[in-house]
């Protein structure tokens, strides 16, 4: 079984984010990056499927589109147990929308003909929640989204799809297929020291626009961010200040006398 995992590298949660000079994205120079949260779960799911599948010859391929820094995300995935990686890197890939990203990923993955592709359900930065589903269509795969459990039953998958407000639904679909994975589906592993050492010798293939057989115009965005701003606060929040003890006393007083909940 050949499983491909789409991993995106995004600004880390703890980074203090500021807008760039044109207010069209965040300033990326002095922040940290990490693997997009649901993608971490997607990778873990792929590794588990590989490890529990019968027979041999199973493989997990990581596929990441991003600048040079994204190699860190790839290395992490290889250290955790992925077998090899495709790194889509080209100046033409900068600032792609979900469609462009999916188009490039599809060009890379169509040559691999994976049995299963897993992606995160949504990226923490753009938050479009589209790339995986578009990729499924471009690769001609059946898909299901926001998955919380995967059962492999021969040439079929049985997956638990999360719905709103604590509801779920089992879906059956044929392989090959694409699933978008929800955070919480499993307990992701940490890389071991042995894994980290081993990752160094695993194949990482770089793919440019030309390698993918695409022209820049194939990736033309169907949407563009004009500008970004901090949310406008409808500001009714009363901020309490002082040292912790003072704040605690003031809040307790407000809870008693204003909110009347004590």
């Amino acid at each position: 079984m050949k499983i491909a995992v789409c991993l995106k590298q995004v600004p880390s949660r703890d980074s203090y984010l500021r807008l760039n000079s044109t207010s069209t994205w965040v300033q990326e120079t002095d922040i940290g990056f990490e693997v997009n949260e649901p993608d971490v779960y997607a990778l873990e799911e792929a590794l588990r499927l590989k490890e529990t599948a019968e027979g041999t010859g199973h493989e997990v391929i990581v596929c990441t589109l991003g600048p040079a820094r994204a190699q860190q995300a790839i290395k992490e995935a290889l250290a955790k147990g992925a077998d090899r990686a495709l790194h889509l890197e080209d100046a033409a890939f900068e600032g792609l929308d979900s469609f462009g990203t999916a188009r490039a990923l599809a060009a890379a993955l169509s040559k691999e003909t994976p049995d299963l592709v897993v992606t995160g359900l949504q990226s923490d930065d753009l938050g479009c929640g589209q790339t995986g589903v578009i990729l499924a269509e471009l690769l001609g795969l059946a898909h299901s989204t926001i998955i919380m459990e995967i059962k492999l039953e021969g040439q079929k998958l049985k997956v638990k799809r999360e719905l709103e407000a604590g509801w779920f639904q089992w879906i059956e679909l044929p392989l090959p297929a694409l699933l978008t994975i929800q955070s919480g589906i499993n307990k992701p592993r940490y890389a071991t020291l042995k894994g980290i050492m081993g990752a160094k010798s695993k194949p990482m293939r770089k793919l440019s626009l030309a390698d993918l057989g695409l022209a820049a115009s194939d990736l033309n965005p169907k949407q563009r961010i004009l500008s970004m701003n901090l949310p406008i606060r409808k500001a009714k929040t009363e901020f309490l200040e002082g040292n912790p003890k003072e704040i605690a006393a003031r809040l307790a007083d407000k809870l008693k006398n204003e909110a009347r909940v004590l």
Partner: protein
Amino acid sequence: MPIDVLIVAEHQGGKLARATWEAVAAGQSMAADSGGAASVVILGNQISALADELAKARLSEVLAVQSELLSNYTVDGYVFVLAKVIRERAPDYVVLGHTYQTRDFAPKLAAVLGAGFVSDCLGYRKENTKLIFNRQVFQGKFEADVEPRGQPPWLISFQSGSFREDSVERAESHVSAVQIEIPPGTIRTQPGERFREARQTVDLGQAEIIVAAGRGIKSPDHLEMVKKLAEALGGEVGASRPVCDSGWLPMDRQIGSSGQTVAPKLYVALGISGAIQHQVGMKGSRTIVAVNKDKEAPIFEIATYGIVGDLFEIVPPLIEEIRKIKAG
């Protein structure tokens, strides 16, 4: 140039989704500003009552596509039918609520049509003849103005609560039945029944006071402190999704779009950033206290009282103060 809008309805268990009425409000508004037409399309089996209900909104028509193959939602069935309807009617915009179902099929529909899809929008504004859409990025830390590019149609989904159901304009509209044959083999997925996990042991919906822990509590060891605060206040402990995902608290403590919806008298959010999926589950709370070390955290947009600081410094004296008041 008039803007024509086609709104996609969603229904479950014989009821229209609230997101559908919000999408109707959005679609009506987008069309009306330009003198265009807004229509709705609904897919299903035995849905005439729902189509009639939709026809009470001011629409140029309600298109009802009925087929046994549409009795249950499937992504392939929906995409096949909607692509056909959209190609025939050629609307400028296709408007949807940003629901789980939309997440499942709309990106595929967009890809089939070669259309752009601006998802999870908060609103729109007009700039000359164009519409510019506003949406959250970076988990609500920023908002972005987004311009759809290329050729129509464009798909637009709106976040829950962005438009109000009660602003839907009413009138008698017409229902048209549309016949579409879905070829055998089109639908590749087989959906099962919807279910809930049985192990729901607390009903946070009944709690008057909730103290909720977010990823900011760092480790399950610190839950003790959160529980003490909840005890001092006489309330229940709740959590954001990552806390439950990590197994620090059971799933039935999760508050938000995929967990419970609560509206207590007091909601204390400790180390919770306030992503929209969390907010929708608790923004109806009467008094909201937020403790967060990041002054830009989106939770402060809805908090009654805000404390910018380290929760580990604030919570212990707060427990003391509350105990004092309760004792005295």
